[in-house]
């Protein structure tokens, strides 16, 4: 991309909404706190001032009804963007998402589509605990009729949000809180990043690391450090969880012969298991080693930093797992991480040292 404009993921998302609203009068935004001074972590700031009350809506604490209302607006030709500051709040609207949004197009004979984007913020760290940070991508990916998008790079966050708004189907757009503060080159113009297409963020030949959202950033850092151990890791940033880009995954694993899937969610019934199954059941002979997966321990997320440091997988976990798959000596990993100047003195429960909480 020609641009050299470095902005945060949050700014990229705000820009995508702003430009979509400027381009299409049917796009509107609604959510708890959308027009408030903080504007959903900065992702909706300034929109009410620019587009007015008729297009930028706050809402009562009525997640289920408001999701239904957004579906009603969507089948009337509008393009709602519904925002939840935590995915966990959106669970109150699962009836409308699963029973109606996902099925409306099919069950009424393809007569009415539901062009609805539901943004949900997922997370990691800062004591968010059991009900403020759940990564439930597998739950939504299980439902036919929904698309599930999970960007890691700011530029993809913008391009995928454009694509999601233009998509005639309901799209669950999962934004990791730590992606909001990630920075990257983001073109100023309007562009779309296709839904359902993964991105290879690091080329390699020894092992394929499939990941998404924040863990794709950790996987990328892991791949960069693994080079110091002489390991050439290929990192696939899925970008979309449903539909899965099976082609890109399979092409890479055919080349490397090894597969590690790094997910931000629980392993039980998760996306990592799905990806491994698809590879193994398609052609097990391409694998030179047993595939592996990394996810959260199958238990609710604790709040205490004394516990979360053992709960969340991290750079070290990924690097160690890669060494295990490759049967390589992992004893120097700690030293390699400790020697990297960019990784110094960042506590494990924040994305970077500028984070002072609460968030």
């Amino acid at each position, binding site marked *: 991309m020609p641009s050299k404009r470095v902005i945060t993921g949050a700014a990229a998302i705000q820009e995508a909404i702003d430009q979509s609203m400027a381009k299409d009068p049917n796009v509107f935004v609604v959510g708890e706190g959308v027009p408030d001074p903080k504007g959903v972590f900065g992702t909706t700031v300034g929109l009410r001032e620019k587009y007015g009350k008729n297009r930028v809506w706050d809402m009562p604490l*009525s997640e289920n009804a408001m999701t239904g209302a957004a579906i009603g607006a969507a*089948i009337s030709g509008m393009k709602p963007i519904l925002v939840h500051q935590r995915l966990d709040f959106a669970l109150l609207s699962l*009836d*409308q998402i699963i029973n109606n949004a*996902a099925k*409306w197009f099919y069950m009424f004979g393809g*007569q*009415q589509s539901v062009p609805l984007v539901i943004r949900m913020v997922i997370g990691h760290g800062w004591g968010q605990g059991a009900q403020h940070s759940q990564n439930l991508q597998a739950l939504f990916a299980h439902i*036919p009729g929904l*698309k599930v998008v999970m960007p890691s790079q700011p530029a993809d966050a913008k391009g995928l949000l454009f694509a999601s708004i233009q998509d005639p189907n309901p799209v669950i757009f999962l934004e990791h809180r730590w992606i909001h503060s990630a920075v990257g080159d983001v073109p100023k113009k309007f562009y779309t990043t296709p839904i359902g297409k993964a991105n290879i963020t690091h080329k390699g030949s020894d092992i394929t690391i499939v990941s998404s959202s924040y863990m794709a950033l950790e996987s990328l850092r892991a791949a960069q450090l693994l080079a110091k151990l002489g390991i050439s890791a290929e990192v696939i940033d899925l970008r979309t969880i449903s539909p899965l880009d099976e082609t890109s995954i399979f092409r890479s694993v055919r080349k490397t012969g090894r597969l590690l899937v790094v997910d931000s969610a629980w392993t039980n019934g998760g996306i990592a298991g799905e990806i491994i199954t698809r590879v193994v059941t398609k052609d097990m002979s391409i694998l030179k080693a047993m595939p592996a997966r990394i996810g959260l321990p199958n238990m609710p997320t604790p709040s205490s930093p004394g516990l979360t440091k053992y709960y969340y997988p991290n750079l070290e976990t990924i690097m160690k797992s890669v060494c295990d798959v490759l049967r390589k000596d992992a004893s120097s990993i700690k030293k390699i991480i400790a020697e990297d100047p960019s990784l110094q003195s960042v506590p494990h429960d924040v994305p970077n040292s500028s984070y002072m909480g609460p968030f």
Partner: protein
Amino acid sequence: MEGGHSEKMYEMLLRIRMVEERIGELYAEQQMRCPVHLSIGQEAVAAGVCEALGKKDTVMSGHRAHAHYLAKGGNLKKMVAEIYGRETGCCMGRGGSMHLVDLRANFIGSTPIVGGTIPIAMGLVWAAKMKKEKQVSVIFLGEGTTEEGVFHESLNFAALHNLRVLFVCENNLYSVYTPLNERQSNRPRTGIAKANGLYADVGDGNKALEVYEKTQKALQHIRSDRGPAFLEFSTYRWREHCGPNYDNALGYRTEEEFELWKKTDPLVQLEKAGKFTEEYTVSVRSRLDKEIAEAFAFAKKSPYPKKSEINPRLSYAE
């Protein structure tokens, strides 16, 4: 009452009754292989409300939706074909009796999750407000639905933004077999509506003329942008909750109660109120008989959807 409304409501009410009775008669053939929730006994609410609506006004409903679909002008052949699971059905055989739609008639859809369509109906006129359109959105619901959270959430939002929604509650006293007094405190549902800032009224749901008049008044309120409205009409389901049979023998309600309600038959009441001649009623019946026979014949001779319709891609719009 202006001329013609009584006749139109009568013909619609009778049409719904005869369609439902035909479904009841033929259900045992095992060709309608989906649940059916018949509207017999409750037809006057649908006929009265929809007679007061304009073509552009929209209607949505729940699991017991045949009457609402037909009263709004939904295509009969497509409804029957849908119940028969045929590709000519209103949902191409994907929906069955509990998923009806006829966009040409502005019947936007019905689904069987109690309360599920309430916020969607509200969303239709939320969008209308954003687009500066003026139609009214009617949502039919049962009294059981007023126990769902989404009902209360929707009343608040509709009133907050002055949305053109008419909530029509058919109170038939039972949720499946569970009576109202085991589910709700002795609360007037109109009180809930009023507390949210809605216009609210109750009426006899077995008197089509009363339903029509009360709906007209509520619509005047809504169309003059004084806010959404809630109407509750008392009525009674004659057949079993789901299926073609009578189920009083189960003992959840008494035969006496059933007989008492049957005496208020909405069809008989409208026949009397309209002072229709026998010649007229006989000719209407014979015309409807023919139309209904044709609809069932159409459904039965229509093919099932093709095997290629089992395709995951059909879950998504292109």
